[in-house]
């Protein structure tokens, strides 16, 4: 028997009424307040996570800056930060979620080359713009149809700089020690060639990360009697390699890259082990207003280039969409990035709020970010990058030169 009393009646009426009244409203609200979602895939845990926390803070600061300035054509932005756990598998899961479930317009961060190589095809196949801070040359050689923008210098450029610096130091025999990464063999080839071109010698060895000891690898390296060792690893394996090099009595020169030799390693090793290693660090645009404003807002004394790049990834997506107007998808981001970041006729601007205001007035702008001038070659690689050469001295990273 159907029970029909006062309570069910009221409940039913209220329910039906709320659907009736709410339905058109929610539709109307969705038009104007639906947020634009930007995905960020960064290493918060694992071997490459040294910059994870500041990358995350930088991404949130970019959202804050865009939304405080009124958002993109009236719509707020939102970043969805996913941890890639320094692992390509986890990154692919995160990218699938961001693209298929959250419907992001672009993905930024993407730090380790192995991670970026894994998620890049997902992005360009789904017509989502990928901003990456990885170095492996192969990434922009994919058939990405312009959907990839790289804000970090390539491996070829970094390898060439490290090789030339080692030659400047007077070294004749180079040995490269690094873990299996998409760029390890390129480093060996590039740097060895530089040495061989001037009559020196160069060789290398690719090891496995996650090992408790690299004694045998170090023994093999030292058998070639090198006078400079190039360290191509990330922090955890590099710290073990450095200890084993010290134990084995190696006293020659050591040069590394910023993802392996940085303050984290200087803090994590006894001074006698870390003393004198030189690190090549892609430099943030430290003299620019964008950089100074960013570190001021984050209340930091300085900020690494990679975190600045993540900030710029969010800003580039936002400004591109602001210029695109009504269309808000990955293709709109792709098609408008160069128009807002490298138009010679545009007004130079380093402040997000000002850039958004100029765009709303239909003015042409040229945004220069905290990580650099953000000018991209046709293949998506960034141009005009500077490096800082830093040396570990008494447990502190000390600047030698910028070039």
């Amino acid at each position, binding site marked *: 028997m159907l029970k029909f009393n006062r309570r069910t009646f009221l409940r039913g009426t209220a329910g039906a009424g709320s659907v009736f009244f709410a339905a058109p409203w929610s539709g109307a609200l969705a038009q104007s307040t639906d947020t634009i979602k930007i995905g960020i895939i960064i290493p918060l845990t694992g071997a490459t996570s040294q910059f994870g926390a500041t990358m995350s803070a930088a991404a949130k600061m970019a959202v804050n800056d865009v939304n405080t300035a009124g958002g993109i054509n009236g719509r707020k932005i939102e970043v969805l930060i996913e941890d890639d756990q320094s692992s390509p598998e986890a990154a692919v899961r995160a990218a699938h979620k961001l693209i298929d479930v959250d419907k992001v317009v672009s993905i930024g961060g993407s730090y380790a080359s192995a991670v970026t190589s894994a998620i890049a095809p997902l992005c360009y196949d789904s017509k989502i713009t990928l901003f990456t801070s990885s170095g492996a040359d192969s990434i922009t050689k994919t058939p990405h149809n312009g959907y990839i923008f790289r804000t970090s210098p390539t491996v070829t450029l970094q390898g060439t700089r490290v090789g030339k610096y080692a030659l400047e130091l007077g070294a004749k025999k180079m040995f490269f020690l690094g873990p299996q990464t998409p760029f390890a063999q390129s480093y060996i080839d590039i740097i060895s060639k530089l040495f061989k071109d001037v009559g020196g010698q160069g060789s290398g060895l*690719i090891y496995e990360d996650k090992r408790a000891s690299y004694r*045998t690898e170090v023994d093999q390296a030292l058998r070639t009697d090198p006078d400079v060792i190039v360290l191509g690893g990330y922090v955890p394996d590099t710290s073990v390699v450095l200890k084993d090099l010290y134990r084995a009595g190696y006293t020659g020169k050591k040069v590394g890259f910023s993802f392996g030799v940085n303050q984290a390693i200087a*803090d994590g090793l006894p001074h006698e082990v870390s003393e004198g290693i030189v690190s090549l660090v892609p430099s943030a645009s430290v003299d620019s207003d964008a950089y100074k404003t960013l570190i001021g807002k984050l209340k930091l004394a300085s900020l690494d280039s990679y975190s600045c790049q993540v900030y710029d990834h969010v800003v580039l997506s936002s400004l591109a969409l602001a210029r695109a107007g009504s269309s808000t998808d990955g293709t709109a981001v792709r098609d408008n990035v160069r128009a807002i970041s490298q138009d010679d006729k545009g007004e130079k601007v380093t402040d997000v709020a000002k850039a958004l205001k100029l765009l709303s007035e239909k003015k042409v702008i040229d945004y220069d970010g905290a990580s650099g001038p953000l000018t991209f070659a046709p293949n998506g690689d960034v141009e005009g990058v500077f490096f800082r050469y830093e040396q570990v001295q008494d447990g502190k990273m000390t600047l030698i030169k910028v070039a």
Partner: protein
Amino acid sequence: MLTEITQYVLNGLVLGALIALPALGLSLIFSVQGFVNFSVAAQMTVGAYAAWLAGTYVGWSPYPMLLFAFVISGALGVICDRLALAPIRRQSGGQTALMLAVVSIALNLALENALRFIFGNSLNNFDMPIVRNFRLQGLSVGPQQIRNLVTALVITVALAAFFSLTRWGKAMRAVSDNPDLARLKGIDPRRLSNLATFLGMGLAGVGGSLLAIDTSVDPSTGSRLILIIFAASVVGGLTSLYGAVLGALFVGVAGEVALIWISPVYQSLTAFIAILIVLLVKPTGLFAGASGAKR
């Protein structure tokens, strides 16, 4: 060539000594409780952090530091076992051993991330002087590594004495040999399983500390090595204590000597090929039957 091989064997023994203690812990827990407790990896890291805190902030010398690591990892191991694993053990289903192993993997992740939450991701170095290797007949030998090897061997011998000479040790061997018969004889399996967990996790903690003294402490210190530790245990037969130590030394030496022929990138492969061959040729493990707690 001979010097080269000798050097690699030596390096392998040093590496094997580092993984011997956690492998011993894994085998000890398996032989009494009957499942592979993968949270030994996180307990290694717990031990390493405990030793690092005691050494850096309290200024303890190495041996009290290792003892502290043993007690902390052991105690935390028992607490985690009672909270997370005991409830599952009580439901006696056909898949319990597998379920326990899976839950222990989850427990491992939880512990590792708790450490990451508390201490952050950075590397922490022990405040100990790092010593250069000395040269002997063309071979380079590290004093710290030799000390690790000796420490691991001394602990193994002490454990062997515990198992063959004391009441508790004999009771443990009885449980691992035949749990029902042991219960009929009045041995309380729950107290024994607590003791096995305490000892096993404590050993993992000491192993983790030795490893961290050699390298450095970060939240993944232990979990980086769990597969090779598991390999050592399997090669040793999973229930034999000497087997675990010999298995660790075997896996260590095989991995290093293989570098003469294969590229270092594929080094872990040797451990897995070792597991494969052992399981195909002698499924009970190379060293099963060597005395100790055995099934």
